[in-house]
């Protein structure tokens, strides 16, 4: 029997009052796949992530996380997904280790301080930063803690919202390596991004959204950066 897709949306429609934010979206992210969702501001990328997280209810269509319907069984669905926002929000008065232990405990995973520290190292955070309060962390360091939290939750799917925005090239490269490792571990990753270059580098599939609709999908291994850019700009300018 085929295992269920990590993330699956079928004919997903979301209306905010009179405004249609997502229009009949069909999207599947299998396990071990990194899917980059490209699009300009207001294209519906973040709303799509919010629907998978259960923050926004669909107006029509179905949404599943690891085979669980988010509207029928929201708790089970949420337990199968982890989330990394653009700015990883952590508690400034707690250290990296304490933040990781707290979020893991909420997900039902009790980590000792040593285990938490090992996971932070695994996520690429330097050991001398583990005990520091996160109010002193750079954005890249926070992303790594966020990634460690996402890993530790043991989810089948990961949702990333502009994860490399504001990161320097070295940090972006580090982050991409961590993502590839997560995919190799079997996670299905949906990443909303503006970063075309990173999308081509790290993703397996790429989708372009505009006005709530998925206009194009590519196999990332068979498309060049130049081709993707041309298509993206054409879609953005509404050119044929």
């Amino acid at each position, binding site marked *: 029997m085929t295992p269920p897709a990590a993330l699956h949306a079928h004919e997903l429609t979301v209306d905010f009052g009179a405004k249609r934010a997502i229009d009949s979206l069909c999207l599947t992210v299998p396990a071990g796949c990194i899917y980059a969702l490209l699009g300009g501001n207001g294209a519906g990328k973040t709303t799509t992530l919010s629907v998978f997280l*259960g*923050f926004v209810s669909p107006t029509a269509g179905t949404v599943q996380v690891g085979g669980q319907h988010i509207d029928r069984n929201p708790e089970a669905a949420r337990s199968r997904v982890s989330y990394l926002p653009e*700015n990883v*929000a952590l*508690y400034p*008065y707690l250290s990296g280790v304490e933040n990781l232990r*707290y979020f893991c405990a*909420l997900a039902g995973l009790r980590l000792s301080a040593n285990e938490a520290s090992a996971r932070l190292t695994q996520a690429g955070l330097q050991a001398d930063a583990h005990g520091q309060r996160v109010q002193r962390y750079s954005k890249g360091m926070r992303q790594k803690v966020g990634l460690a939290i996402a890993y530790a939750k043991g989810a089948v799917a990961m949702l990333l919202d502009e994860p490399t925005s504001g990161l320097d090239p070295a940090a972006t490269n580090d982050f991409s390596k961590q993502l590839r490792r997560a995919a190799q571990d079997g996670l299905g990753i949906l990443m909303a991004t503006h970063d075309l270059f990173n999308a081509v580098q790290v993703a397996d599939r790429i989708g372009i959204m505009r006005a709530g609709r998925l206009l194009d999908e590519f196999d990332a291994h068979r498309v060049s950066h130049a081709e993707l850019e041309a298509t993206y700009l054409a879609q953005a300018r509404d050119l044929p």
Partner: protein
Amino acid sequence: MIGIIVRRELLALCRDRRVWILALALLAMWAMLYVAALGQQQRLQAERAQIGDTTRAQWDKQGIKHPHRGAHFGMYVFRPDVPLSAFDPGVEPYVGQALWLEPHRRNMARFNPDADSGPATRFGHIVPAFLLAGLFPLLIMALAFSQATQEREQGTLRMLQSMGVSNLALLAGKLIAIAACLVLVFLPVFALLGISAIWQPGVAYAESTYLLPRVASLAAVYLLYYLGIAALGLAVGALSSGSRGALFVLVVLWAVFVLAAPRAASAIAQARVPLPSATQFWAAIAHDYQRGLPGDPDLATQVREFEAGLLRQYGVASLSQVPIGVNAARRLVRDAYADKVHAYHFDALWARYQQQQRLLRWASVFSPTIALVGTSAALSGTSLAHQRHFENAAEQYRQAVNTALDQWDMAHTQGNVSYETQYAADAVWQSVPAFHYTPPSLGFALRSAWPDLLLLAAWAVAAMALLGVAARRWRP
């Protein structure tokens, strides 16, 4: 899950120095106020003890005189200062603390401490209890709302919700953590209150059996109040779109609770239930004493009937032949009626005070602070009910002293004896027992304050319900 949230919240609160600096500043202010109030209480107590001893010594050494003239020498009795009045003076500053006891007449309590206050009174009374009831809620509100708004503003709410944490569990965890902090801060305050009250030199009724249950009840009531305030702060924080909006709403609520509602309610109570002027009050007593209360014959008729009864009882033709002191016997009858008339009018006056208090209680619907103030005064032994208890005890003592002196006079004389005759010596005055007042029990305080307690509990429950609503509407 709530346990995990509570532990994190406590850790964050412990590491937030701003909270502790503010709490310590307020506690230091409270301690200063309390120490100053203790000093003032001890000074007043010493003054009262000295005046009480002096007047009693004068009473005991009146020398030989007519017993009724001796009774008219009169004496002061003072309300013993209850130890917790330094914490919450309740109505004490505004009502008399001494009663002048004399025959025929029940006096109003006089010498209210407020009259002796210095120019600082112009800035309003700030007593230790007001600091806890009025100012600490502001700190708790500020602490509570930011716990909710920060989660949204720093983005952690989205992270938490993505972890499957329910809003209700999160808010409940925060409330428990704040409550734990409050216990941590306020238990030493109430422990200090109990210890200092028990150890006060020269203050009556400082026995631990009287004080400890009261201090424990006070701590429980204040914590219930704070729990409601914290729940309200969290709910407003969760329902508001940002910190500024939440702060504005809470400052307005605080001003209504602590400043506007109590004053407006007092003004309404006074307007709706006006008290008679002193002139009207005493004129009504004088009128009813002479003319008789509704259904009673006038005083002259009552006295005539009594005298006729005396003649019949002893089978004599004139009062001068009656074998007991007729003047004293007549006085006993007249004073018994005077006591009845006074009781009638004083009860009516107290009924009006109680009506005013009931109106104030209704205003608790708009302010939990009003309910807390009423409960706090009752548990501190400084409420209106406690004042009435003291005045009733003093009145019973006055009646007992005058009855005893008149009975002695009646037994030691015969017929009509001139007031100029002197036949009672110091032994008579010294036979009058001193006034010993036993303040009412905790049960009395709770019985008198149960509507306030109920309202306070209702406020706490309503605040929790609002927190439940806020949990449903809390969005990242």
